[in-house]
């Protein structure tokens, strides 16, 4: 499989097929990161389209020193932030939803998934981004700090706060032994 750098060189040389390969390689990660932050299937696809268009238009700016995945994650995070700011589509756990879900009867059940999604969407954006990059994409602290252009200590403290908020939101629903 060709590396991202090889593909980028081919794209800038005018090979449109190389861009398709690049999208195929990264679309799953990009869409899932956006979906984890917005909780909306269609919006995740729409924002991902904007991300790849931006990537295509700005490929000349990409310096081969950094990892391409770091760059594309950064664009995805910025696009999602702009979208959330514009649409104000924050998810909140309504009281009615709280009453319907009593406990984690089954971690993989639809209700639990729903509860986890809402809890993540409720997090402040800067905490949500770090949590998604760590838990969903399994990036290291160093990779997250490079993506967000911040210190490793900042990543650590944001992750600590994000998990504390999630614990307070989700643990009351946890039933021992499930």
């Amino acid at each position, binding site marked *: 499989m060709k590396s991202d750098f090889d593909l980028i060189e081919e794209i800038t040389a005018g090979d449109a097929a190389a861009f398709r390969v690049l999208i195929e390689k990264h679309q799953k990660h990009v869409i899932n990161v956006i979906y984890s932050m917005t909780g909306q299937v269609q919006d995740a696809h729409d924002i991902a389209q904007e991300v790849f268009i931006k990537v295509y*238009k700005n490929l000349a*700016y990409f310096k081969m020193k950094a990892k391409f995945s770091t760059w594309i994650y950064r664009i995805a995070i910025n696009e999602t932030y702009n979208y959330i700011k514009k649409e104000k589509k924050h998810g909140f756990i309504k009281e009615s939803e709280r009453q319907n879900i009593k406990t984690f009867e089954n*971690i993989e059940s639809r209700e639990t998934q729903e509860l986890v999604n809402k809890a993540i969407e409720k997090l402040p954006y800067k905490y949500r981004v770090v949590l998604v990059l760590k*838990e*969903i994409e399994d990036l290291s*602290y160093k990779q997250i700090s490079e993506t967000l252009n911040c210190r490793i200590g900042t990543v650590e403290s944001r*992750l600590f706060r994000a*998990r504390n908020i999630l614990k307070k939101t989700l643990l009351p629903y946890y039933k021992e032994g499930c």
Partner: protein
Amino acid sequence: MRCYSVKRLLNRYVDKEIDETTKKFMEEHLKVCALCKKELEALLLMKHVISKKEKLEIDKNFISLLEKRLMEEKPDNETHYLTEMNYLAQRTAPVLLTLAVLVMIIIFAFYNDSQVMKDYMDNVFISKDIPVL
């Protein structure tokens, strides 16, 4: 190791971002401290629940839709890559603007200074005309 240090490092521990020596000290503490162990279990549970979060099925038409949009945006079949010149212009424009403002401020300051000097000289000249009594 004390509870404070262990609790502070628990996130690093579950994320495997900790060196072997510290990990060993933490594990020794966790064997004997029920409170820290409870914190660890809560953290692991959180991780487990989030890791089970469903992955999104990608729309099969995603790439074809994207390619269609890119084709629509291309004028005369040319790519949209910004040239190095455009890039440089975008980067240097704010610097040039700042320089222009600075030059204007300096010119204005000099102009004001020369006005003050002119007024002073005029006064001196006028004072010479006043007859001494």
